């Protein structure tokens, strides 16, 4: 029964990683950059909900909507002012800028909210369920996280594969010049990608803070790194890869916490990543890069 319990909470944690990883992988796919400020968007989303719900006493639903709206806007703004001017710059310059934006967001939060961790009130009001005569208890947060992440992943998959803007996104990620010749506005498409990625990060942040209710300016850093790992694990640039990578990472992390050691769980997660990348450098679903002459 323990195993089942670890597995379920692992899937839930993995769902959160997957939502964050999707932002990394989509932005990488389309703008060919690693947006290391992505994790900190999660933290800003958390503070936004905290301010709306705990400080101003509003309904959790308003907290969710406000947080998603602010993060979406934040993601688009970061892209517009920090990354867009560097569209033709060297990749290293963009990477350093992204790290800079990450520190900027963390320090802004430090300035506004202080360094002490805030206790986050869960935005989930559904009660947990108890199965097998109380031997297996699944919290409302865990349930909601699993359901929400699965629904979002299905919706995103449909959007990318079945709609016109989704098709344009895939076209841009493959060949920006050819996409422009088709009439696709590449800048608008990149902005849309950042908007979607940041909205997903906000949702992930709220779910994360609801399950692990402590909020500090560094809350986004570790999940951000792990989600990035998940994206690489699944094959960076691949949307199903990010989903599988995220969920696997959550399961591995929770099982190692349960059966091996809480302290070592992160080390185990990253060791497995290294082994996988040694065997398959492009990640689980990564595409083999072949140059046709």
């Amino acid at each position, binding site marked *: 029964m323990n195993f089942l319990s670890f597995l379920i909470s692992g899937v839930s944690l993995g769902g959160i990683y997957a939502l964050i990883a999707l932002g990394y992988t989509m932005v990488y796919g389309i703008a060919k950059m690693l947006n290391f400020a992505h994790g900190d968007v999660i933290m800003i989303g958390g503070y936004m909900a905290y301010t709306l719900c705990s400080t101003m006493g509003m309904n959790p639903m308003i907290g969710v909507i406000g947080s998603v709206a602010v993060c979406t806007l934040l993601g688009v703004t970061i892209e517009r002012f920090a990354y867009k001017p560097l569209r033709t710059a060297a990749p290293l310059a963009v990477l350093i800028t992204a790290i800079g934006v990450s520190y900027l967001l963390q320090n802004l939060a430090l300035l506004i909210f202080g360094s002490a961790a805030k206790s986050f009130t869960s935005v989930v009001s559904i009660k947990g369920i108890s199965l097998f005569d109380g031997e297996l208890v699944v919290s409302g947060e865990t349930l909601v996280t699993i359901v929400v992440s699965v629904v979002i992943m299905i919706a995103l998959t449909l959007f990318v594969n079945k709609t*016109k803007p989704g*098709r*344009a996104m*895939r*076209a841009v990620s*493959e*060949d920006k*010049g*050819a*996409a*422009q*010749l*088709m*009439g*696709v*506005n*590449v800048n608008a498409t990149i902005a849309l990608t950042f908007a979607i990625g940041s909205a997903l990060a906000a949702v992930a942040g709220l779910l994360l803070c609801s399950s692990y209710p402590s909020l500090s300016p560094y809350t986004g850093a570790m999940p951000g790194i792990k989600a990035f790992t998940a994206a690489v694990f699944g094959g960076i640039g691949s949307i199903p890869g990010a989903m599988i990578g995220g969920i696997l990472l959550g399961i591995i992390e929770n099982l190692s916490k349960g059966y091996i050691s809480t302290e070592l769980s992160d080390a185990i997660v990253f060791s497995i990543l290294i082994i996988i990348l040694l065997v398959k450098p492009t990640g689980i679903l990564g*595409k083999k890069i072949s140059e046709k002459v």
Partner: protein
Amino acid sequence: MSALLQVENIEVYYGAIKALKGVSFEVNKGEIVSLIGANGAGKTTVLHTITGLLHSKNGKIIYDGKDITKTPAHKIVSMGMAHVPERRRIFQQLTVLENIKMGAYTRKDKKEIEESLEAVYKSFPRLKEREKQIAGTLSGGEQQMLAMGRALMSKPEIILMDEPSMGLSPLLVSEIFEIIKTINENGTTVLLVEQNAKKALSIADRAYVLETGNVVLSGNGSDLLNDESVKKAYLSE
């Protein structure tokens, strides 16, 4: 009569290197105009500058009476100009049908798009057979047909084609050139860039010879075919 497309004295730089040193030419409505020249003469650069993927430092590009010198690339296609780029540049990971639909990206009327799709399938039946296939798995000839079909989906007034014969067998090259003729007979103006000078001149109404960033010669397709200097340099006779 003013030309449908008028290129006046464009100069394009790659960093410090001047790739086009003041190129001028024009394309009239209904014509097939070929731009021939050796590798590196600047033919592809000319097309990229017209459709906005590159920008000219000086000079002007007038299309249908409008100055499009500074128009961004994504706004060109809805003005009636389609570009079949060098090496086809189809979207390898999209399906054949998705590629074709990308060609109609700026069009709104679903019924008219459906009609264009039927027309493209009629011209290229092979594409219909393979509509669900991932485009990267097509053969070179099929990819060229896909790139042309994709461009036709925008219902262009003028179509710019960059090396459509590249990497194809002689039989396929003839087929592709037949298709270009048909596209033109159906009323679309064609600006063709080719290394296969013989083929390009034989279907062209007029042609320009480009050499290291300059137009060095121009005339009727048939005149250039018989021109001694062209014969020597480009027709390997």
